[in-house]
């Protein structure tokens, strides 16, 4: 594999707990790879292994062809990292932070001011460079952190939930920045637990309980053949309807989605005809049953369910 970021059968144990369980993937140059999964799925642990902050229990993590466990310093020179928890110095101003990291990364003196100016422009921080970071709003902090991470023009960026806790407008703006960076040939590995952000990534890795459940583009993952046809069911008593549908003939999977149910069925036409009388027979009055396009979340739920089932059988 000649990817910029390569994981080969990566395992990380904390005592008895297996945080990362045999993960393999590869990200090519200029690609934006998204890690999607619930909290505690192991996304941060994988990223921290790539940044040389944690040693893998087994397996290999390679960045730009370098084994991270062998030569972490060579890797650190080539990467930019945004940790999940905001980790710039709150008691320094935006500019002081930028200057500090530029010097730590040994940005040439002659270029220092120009690079900082560019980071300030990119992050839209003009006029706020002398403000203490503690006083900046969430979206600004996030963009400043990205600015600090790319001062030294790293070839690879690791962004761990960079948009958590930021308003939707700031999130969108942040993703534009990530795209602009990737367009310059920077490889980006970014984690998030917002399903809708998957659309911004070239490829997505669905991660659950330390395992890679699926890898592919958003549209590939949505077109999950095992998902079958998807119906949206609106009714009064969601709990009872869910229990009834899970045992209904022709129903593969049913899950609550907002104040509706998403029901995955083998045959759309038959289900549309059979489900209303079935539910009424159970004393539930369906207001509406319509076919819908599956979302990434549907796919994720199905894939995780499949993985759990195959585990149970094994």
């Amino acid at each position, binding site marked *: 594999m000649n990817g910029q970021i390569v994981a080969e059968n990566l395992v990380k144990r904390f005592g008895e707990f297996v945080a990362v369980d045999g993960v393999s993937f590869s990200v090519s140059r200029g690609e934006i790879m998204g890690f999607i999964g619930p909290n505690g799925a192991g996304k941060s642990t994988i990223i921290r292994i790539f940044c040389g902050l944690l*040693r893998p229990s087994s397996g290999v993590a390679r960045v730009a062809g370098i084994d991270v466990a062998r030569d972490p310093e060579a890797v650190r020179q080539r990467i930019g990292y945004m940790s999940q928890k905001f980790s710039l110095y709150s008691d320094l101003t935006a500019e002081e932070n930028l200057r500090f990291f530029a010097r730590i990364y*040994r940005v040439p003196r002659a270029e220092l001011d120009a690079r900082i100016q560019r980071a300030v422009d990119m992050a839209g921080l003009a006029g706020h460079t002398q403000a203490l970071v503690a006083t900046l709003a969430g979206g600004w902090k996030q963009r400043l952190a990205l600015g600090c991470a790319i001062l030294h023009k790293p070839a690879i960026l690791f962004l761990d939930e960079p948009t958590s806790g930021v308003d939707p407008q700031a999130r969108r703006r942040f993703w534009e920045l990530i795209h602009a960076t990737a367009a310059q040939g920077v490889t980006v590995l970014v984690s998030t637990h917002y399903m809708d952000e998957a659309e911004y990534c070239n490829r997505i890795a669905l991660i659950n309980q330390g395992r890679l459940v699926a890898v592919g583009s958003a549209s590939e993952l949505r077109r999950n053949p095992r998902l079958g046809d998807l119906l949206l069911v609106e009714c009064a008593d969601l709990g009872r309807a869910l229990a009834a549908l899970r045992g209904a003939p022709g129903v593969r999977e049913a899950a609550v989605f907002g104040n509706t149910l998403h029901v995955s069925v083998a045959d759309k036409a038959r289900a549309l005809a059979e489900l209303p009388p079935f539910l009424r027979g159970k004393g539930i009055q369906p207001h509406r049953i319509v076919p819908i396009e599956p979302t990434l979340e549907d796919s994720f739920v199905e894939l995780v369910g499949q993985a759990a089932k195959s585990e149970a059988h094994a």
Partner: protein
Amino acid sequence: MNVRRILAIARKELIQVRRDPRSLAIALLLPLMQMFLLGYGISLDITNIPTCVYDQEASQHSQALLARFKASRYFGIVKSVWDYGALRRALDAGDCQLGIVVPWNFSLRLSTDGKSSVQALVDATNDNTATLAAGYAQSVVSAYAADDLELRFTGTGRRLGAPQPLAVDSRVWFNEDLASRDFIIPGLVAMIMALVGALLTSLTLSREWERGTMELLISTPVTSMELMIGKLLPYFAIGMADAAFCVALAVGWFGVPFRGQLVTLFLTTLLFLAVVLGIGYAISAAIRSQIGASQVALLLTMLPTAMLSGFSFPIDQMPAVIRAITYVVYSRYYVTIVKAVFLKGSGLAQLALPIAGLLIYAVVITFVAARAFRKSLG
């Protein structure tokens, strides 16, 4: 190792100290407060011991003797009583710590036997004060007796019947006034250096862990050696400034004589700072909370320096076991050096031994501190 990175860290650290009220207080206020609190608070001299007198003789002689007690700055006559019961009550009530009883035959015995005695009753619940009070009283009475004898001798033109008693004529060197403040304040400088140095550096890594900034810092190519040097540099500067401030106060305000050379003090202080800053740094690497790290730093600096360095209790009067332990108390060497530079004017050559002790400590601690921090979250 990259100088620019080291300076970047030093600069950042200095900005943070400047903006952190807690660190500022430790760097600026603590030395000032310690100097004044302990400089005035700790004095082993005792003056104005509250004293009761019971003059049974009530003669010209007995009054002359008591006048000497009054004149001495060691005693303050608070009460005159006329029986033992009253004296006892005064001692019990704590009105006085010393009772002087001049017997009814005081002058008679002095003139006939050439010697007489005065009774001193001491409240020994504070044994240090008691010993000193008894000692001072003894010397007042002896001086009176000697003068009295001389007066008689010159008055009659007769030779004394008894030969002059042999007396020890002691000459005190280096601290001629036996002022305990001169003795204590140089040690206080050491104490403040230890406290400030270790306290400040104990916060330096734990602050980064606590605020979550460490994760990003160790993801950069900065080496742990660059980090240590960069982080300790500002504290060296602050420590030296504090030392200069304390020495200036000691000489300028407290009037402690400074007989040595500043260069000797400067070099040994640098060495001592290397030890205490290293200790603080190692603690900071091991304990990832600021409160925890500063507690441990207090325990490892203040306690041994106050008790076992010779700062307050003379080492040669300690039991052998404790005396042996003082050799591992790093501040013992520095306290010895500072006192010698201040009071004896010792130079580097005379201080070779304690300097060697400090040097060994500095090397070992620097090694430990450099190893203590690992660039890993694990």
